[in-house]
């Protein structure tokens, strides 16, 4: 490769710094906001940095509103979202894991058929998945609400799982099919010559080989499930079944909530997926690219 001239190098450095600022700058107010008391935020509305830092917001949320400390002791009103946060976190986790496992299982079976057993109708099914992936969620929620009401699936975690399964299934198929197609078929062929059935070849050869693809798909499914607001917002009205996005949305209509507390709860709500994306970046990147550009 040719060496870069210094003006060009300088330009790319500045461009990179701008890109980094674009990506990270919005986090600064969240962190600063979450680390101060409401009084310190109101005291000087022109100050960029808080006068004193405190972890009281996090302590309050993580204890479900019990550990008040000196800052919140005088408070007669606490947002309900604060009390509900630990339970909602658990709900989100349960729903996310269930959706990921169920969707991954169904999608991998079907993706193998679509990738390896090329029949006219499986190819059509693949295109149907592409269209289904783009079904607008709000369009789906109106009838799902009526149906779930009729079949008693409102206000339950399993109802949320069913709806998210339907929403995510086509996308999971889109991510996995190119992945399975890209696997060399030599090993499978050898196993078949040795007398394995297709099903056995799938279980013993293809699935173990495609662990990275399944990981990529799985982590994306979990993240989307963790982010999902509209499905639980519409299907659930009882606090014990609310997920993290729903209680966060509850802060919107809560006129007494403080931004400091809100930013702390936001940070806690985004940490799990942020951690997953940073830790499993390689898989997330691959899954997102194959899911959009068929590999």
């Amino acid at each position, binding site marked *: 490769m040719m060496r870069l001239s210094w003006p060009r190098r300088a330009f790319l450095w500045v461009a990179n710094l701008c890109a980094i600022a674009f990506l990270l700058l919005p986090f600064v107010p969240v962190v600063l906001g979450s680390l101060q008391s409401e009084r310190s935020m*109101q005291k000087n509305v022109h100050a960029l940095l808080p006068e004193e830092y405190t972890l009281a917001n996090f302590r309050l949320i993580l204890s479900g509103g019990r550990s008040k400390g000196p800052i919140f002791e005088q408070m007669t009103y606490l947002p309900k979202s604060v009390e509900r946060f630990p339970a909602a976190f658990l709900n989100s986790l349960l729903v996310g894991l269930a959706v990921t496992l169920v969707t991954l299982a169904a999608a991998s079976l079907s993706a193998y058929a679509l990738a390896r057993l090329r029949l006219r109708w499986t190819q059509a099914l693949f295109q149907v998945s592409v269209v289904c992936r783009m079904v607008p969620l709000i369009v789906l929620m109106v009838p799902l609400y009526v149906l779930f009401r009729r079949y008693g699936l409102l206000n339950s975690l399993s109802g949320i799982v069913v709806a998210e399964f339907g929403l995510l*299934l086509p996308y999971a198929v889109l991510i996995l099919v190119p992945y399975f197609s890209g696997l060399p078929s030599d090993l499978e062929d050898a196993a078949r010559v040795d007398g394995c059935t297709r099903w056995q070849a799938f279980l013993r050869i293809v699935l173990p080989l495609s662990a990275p693809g399944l990981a990529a798909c799985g982590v994306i499914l979990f993240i989307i499930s963790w982010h999902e607001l509209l499905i639980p917002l519409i299907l659930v009205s009882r606090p014990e079944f609310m997920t993290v996005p729903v209680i966060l949305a509850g802060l919107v209509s809560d006129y007494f909530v403080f931004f400091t507390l809100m930013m702390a709860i936001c940070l806690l709500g985004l940490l799990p997926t942020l951690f997953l994306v940073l830790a499993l970046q390689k898989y997330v990147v691959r899954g997102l690219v194959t899911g959009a550009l068929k590999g």
Partner: protein
Amino acid sequence: MTPGAGTDRAESPVRPGGAPRRSEVSAGWLAFLLNVPTLAGLVLVLAYPICFAGYLSFHEVSIRHLRAGEFPFAGLANFSRLFQDDVFWLSLRHTVVFVVASVALEVVIGLAVALTISDERVWLSRVTRVLILIPWAVPPVVNGLLWSFIVNAQYGYLNRALHKLGLITDYVNWLGHPRLAMAAVIVAYVWRTTPFNILLYHAAIQGIPAQIYEAAAVDGASSWQSLWRLTLPILRPVIAVTLILRTTFSFMVFDEILAITQGGPGNDTWVAAWYTYRMAFQPPFNIGLGAASAWVLAVIVGIAAIAYVKLVYRRVDYA
């Protein structure tokens, strides 16, 4: 014919030269069995509800009817009410503004960042590359709350920063002004969704062989020329993909609207999904009207989806 020939014949178009196997289901049956869970999911949770939405849109459906379990036939009443509702048309107009502005920004910023990080020779671009997906990891509703704090009139950090820089003397009520409120939602949304575009552009740029640029440089092309004459034309397919995908998804923006403006000030940031949500799931809980509006949206998005299939998945060789 040998006993094994029947199964072999069925699978021969799929896998020529396969040896005869002991009792194994045919490829067609296996494909069907493997697809049973997916087909069930697609039919029960996607296809049937969408058809049911069509049914609901021709019936009167409110809380009272839900309790009674009977939906009286309403003919085209829901649609005529929908098309006579000024707020619906207003929401569609806002949606168009939102989609055009956000998709344009996503593509331009996405390309700019992707080109910036694709040069291996700058050490810093490796750092940027690690950070790219961070906004994508933020839950949409959190993103909305985060920006609602940033642009808050009293305590927001946008006002604080602009004041510190001496650009404003009095704090601006960003969400109190129709245009500024829309701009705030667009900025928040674009921040979260652009990483997806950056990622796809970056992947596509990395697939371009370096020799092409070297040959262009030998022929005397400036880097500006190779950007316009080489890189962008090569990226055209992936840009088209992101245009369609982002258009359909931003058509459905909901979380940021809910968290930042709730449609305000007045009706100035009502968009399509917000309209449907408010009609169907907030007082007056007119689910029939919501279903009608949902169907109109589905048709609009369906057209984009079919364009996407035609463009990307037209030929069925994936690898």
